[in-house]
């Protein structure tokens, strides 16, 4: 019984965290091999429009339950944590895994998303 309670407690805590916070440390340490590459960001914009915009909005402003991606904490997040979120999704929160995309394309998306957040005007 105690184990069941602990399991559900752990599950609740995991669900309460944002997917970015759930990324394990070894993934967070991964560097984006395409960081700062303008062409990669351009390719990432194309992939973002195809894979992400329907839920997160054309400019990453967020739609319905899908959170905005044009945010400071996303822009400043370790690229490896974003990669982990794309790899695993957040199935219980409605975000599918994008592991079917080759790694290079996932890094292109991350390059674009982080550039998008950097372009956000200060509020």
């Amino acid at each position, binding site marked *: 019984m105690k184990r069941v309670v602990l399991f559900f407690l752990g599950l609740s805590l995991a669900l309460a965290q944002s997917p970015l916070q759930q990324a394990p440390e070894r993934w967070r340490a991964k560097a984006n091999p395409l960081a700062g590459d303008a062409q990669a960001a351009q390719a990432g914009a194309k992939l973002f429009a195809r894979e992400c915009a329907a839920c997160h909005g054309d400019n990453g402003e967020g739609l319905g339950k899908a959170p905005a991606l044009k945010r400071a904490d996303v822009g400043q997040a370790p690229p490896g944590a974003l990669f982990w979120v794309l790899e695993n999704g957040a199935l*219980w929160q409605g975000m*599918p*895994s994008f592991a*079917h995309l080759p790694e290079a394309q996932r890094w292109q998306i991350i390059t674009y998303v982080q550039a998008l957040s950097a372009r956000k005007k200060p509020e």
Partner: protein
Amino acid sequence: MQVSCVYITAVAMLLLPAAWAGEGPFFVTYTHQLEEPGNLEFATKNVTGKPDGGNRFLAGAAEFEYGVLGWWTTEVYLDGQVTGGENTLFTGYRWENRFRVLPHEHWINPVLYVEFENINGADKTLLEVVNHDSQDDLTAFSADALREKQREIEAKLILGSYVKGWTIAENFIAEKNVRHAPYEFGYAAGISRPLALAARPERCNICPENFQAGVEMYGGLGTHDNFGFNGTSHYVAPTLAWTLADGTMFHVSPSFGITGSSAPFLLRFGVSYEIAQIGRRARSFFGGRP
């Protein structure tokens, strides 16, 4: 009036932004990728062939796949076929559900598949091969074959992996007629890869990353009391998929029978189109809150 409303709705749906149907080039093998929640994919899977001693046939399945949740995809197929010199027939329907077992991505990822199919003996879509299915099943006269009812429950264990741009999938199939007949078994396995791993910056139709090439193999494994390869059909099928910039995917696969009971050659072809977030867009179209 009713017809024009349906027509307008259908046209509006087609004008909605599409998503990429990223399931890969396979016709028979399932990968562990599920439909994105809220997306509806429409696809056709067609097969044509001329079995030894039979007439040329063209069979097709219209597929409607919907992502219910991140871990649950449901799908309905409507099957039909036309055989040279015989009738054109609706041969039945299938309803399948796929459930992702593990919340995170691993080196191998299991998905459970459960399907109910209500088809008749004239069905030639060959969406799976089990038991001792053979080309003789494709030569029976359609008007006679449709009297045979096949109400079956099918279960699959789908295992999938992504390794350095390669998609690898293995399916283990068990099928049981709800009234009689033994448990029937089969398998499918496939491997594919996009021609380029990184995307080009420009929007394009003929980019290498828009093409996926692969090969799949599938066949029957007999029944629980007659398990094995003896007398079963097996096919090897190279596959190629091409996805346009708007998300429409075309795929084609010549399949070669490699045992005496297999049809010598089948040509599979299909098209798929995915509408992203159909519920939200339909609400928005009819003036509701997106």
